[in-house]
């Protein structure tokens, strides 16, 4: 059945190491210079890679071998992680609360899907275009709505997503409307790896893109720009008073986040070869918020815990209780919000502190 069974996991694992080691210095680096404080040292080392940060990648690589029957679901989990990661950049770092982040996921999905359905079958370039399209929509809508704050902004994010969804619905001749976009043809990845029915190629493809997205997001949140976003979240008045162009900073991260979300949407279109209106739907915007709350907001790794947790639980609950599974998700969310503020990561952090481990 398979002519060219792709087994790229080991090369990928090696490539990860190749990429990681020089890009991010591992370990403690040079000790504190004489005469400086531990605070200076902590700041200087803030961007060094901690061993625990490798864990998601080890788990993802192991899952490829341990759960060969679930790779299609695995690919969807990985792209959900990327989507949630993109959302964390605006929610967790810049403090922009949105109920319409699916707008950008959907734009990316339709962009990649329309390309593949109209003869542009090469997936990598399609994914880049999906990201650019979503990023542009993010910048354009952000330029208007980011002038507002709080509830007004929340409602406007909702409206942008609703407008786009209704546009996709009305433009049925192009998008397939309520029937969904079909007839995509996605060429083999790099001309070598066909998208197989087991989802092997899809899984590795999503993992590689997620890894690059994580590298970029990690770079951004640890840059001076990223620290400034935390400043905006913590105290916007103070940021203005130290001369920070707050609006521009918020707009830039909104565009970056939208582009990453669009890439996640593009991955979904290419790996499932189908795009429905729900790619732009309110439910998707809500679910990504729930994923982050479950995992932990503003920590970069909340997405890596929240998205798999949500999707595995959803899968499990739906099998146990096909009618009322949403109830159990809801109950879990209530428990997390009441008893575990900061999500799973927040819980872990408190536990580690109690045990006296360095966080």
């Amino acid at each position: 059945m398979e002519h060219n069974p792709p087994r790229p996991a080991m090369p990928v694992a090696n490539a990860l190491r190749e990429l990681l080691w020089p890009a991010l210095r591992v370990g403690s680096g040079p000790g504190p210079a004489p005469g400086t404080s531990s605070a200076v040292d902590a700041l200087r080392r803030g961007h060094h890679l901690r061993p625990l940060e490798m864990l998601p990648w080890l788990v993802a690589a192991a899952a490829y071998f341990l759960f060969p029957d679930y790779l299609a679901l695995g690919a969807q989990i990985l792209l959900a992680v990327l989507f949630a990661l993109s959302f964390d950049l605006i929610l967790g770092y810049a403090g922009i609360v949105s109920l319409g982040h699916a707008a950008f996921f959907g734009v990316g999905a339709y962009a990649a899907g329309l390309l593949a359905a109209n003869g542009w079958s090469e997936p990598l370039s399609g994914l880049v275009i999906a990201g650019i399209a979503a990023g542009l929509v993010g910048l354009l809508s952000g330029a208007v709505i980011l002038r507002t704050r709080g509830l007004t902004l929340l409602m406007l994010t909702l409206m942008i997503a609703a407008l786009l969804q209704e546009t996709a619905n009305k433009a049925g001749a192009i998008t397939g409307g309520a029937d969904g976009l079909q007839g995509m043809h996605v060429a083999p990845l790099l001309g070598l790896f066909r998208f197989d029915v087991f989802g092997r190629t899809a899984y590795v493809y999503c993992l590689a893109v997620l890894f690059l997205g994580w590298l970029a997001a990690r770079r951004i949140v640890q840059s001076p720009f990223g620290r400034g976003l935390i400043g905006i979240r913590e105290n916007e008045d103070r940021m203005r008073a130290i001369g920070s162009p707050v609006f521009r900073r918020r707009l830039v991260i909104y565009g970056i986040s939208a582009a990453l979300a669009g890439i996640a949407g593009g991955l979904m279109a290419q790996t499932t070869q189908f795009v429905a209106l729900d790619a732009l739907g309110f439910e998707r915007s809500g679910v990504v918020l729930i994923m982050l709350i479950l995992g932990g907001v503003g920590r970069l790794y909340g997405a890596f815990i929240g998205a798999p947790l949500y999707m595995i639980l959803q899968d499990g609950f739906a099998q146990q209780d096909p009618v009322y599974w949403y109830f159990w998700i809801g109950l879990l969310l209530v428990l997390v919000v009441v008893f575990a503020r900061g999500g799973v990561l927040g819980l872990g952090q408190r536990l580690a502190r109690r045990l006296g481990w360095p966080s």
Partner: protein
Amino acid sequence: MTDVGAAALETRGLCKNYGALAVANDINFRLERGARHALIGPNGAGKTTFLDLVTGRFPPTAGRILLGGADVTALAQAQRVKRGLARTFQINTLFRGLSVLENVCMATSERLGRAGDLFRPAGSRRDVIDRAYAALERLGLADDAARLVRELPYGRQRLVEIAVALSLEPDVLLLDEPAAGVPSTESGIIIEVIESLPPEIAVLIIEHDMDLVFRLARRLTVLVQGRILVEGTPPEIAANAAVREVYLGERAST
């Protein structure tokens, strides 16, 4: 006037109305270079509003604001900061969840034009971190560098406010009640810090504490109901009958 150059900060006919209420009424004010100037007045006189107008937190209804002789009335708050205008807040306005050092780094990074950098890790910016740490050392805050601002006693937080503003290397520093809420046992260090500010910085202090005002300021402006009542040296103000009535008299009765 021996000084023929432009003032460090000047307002001409500055007005701010909320409906019929004039919170700033035709304020003509000059802050000379290197000045130690205090703005005093009873509660609700419009002192903080004046600072908010000057820094660009809200636009004035009428009038002009000049910084070093250049009209900055149309500039956004952030752009005025880039031109050398820094302030502290009456109520601590800091990044409470970040360390003292990171609070100052945020300002230093903006000052050095590094804050828009998306790609290089903040931790690799030694110049930013070292300058911020040096600023903390100057204010005696180095021992608290690693602590979160919200864990500091209020008086120390007031010092961080000043450290953040100073890290912008301003020409004009506006201090909004720097010793407000600080027990008198701790206000001494704040006074010392203000006294030791570089002489070339023009400092405008809003303050209720008269001891502090008379100790620090060489010139006073009294603001009442959004208007300048009188301006002069500390002895002139202390002897002024109108000031005694609206301001000092009110204080004596409380």
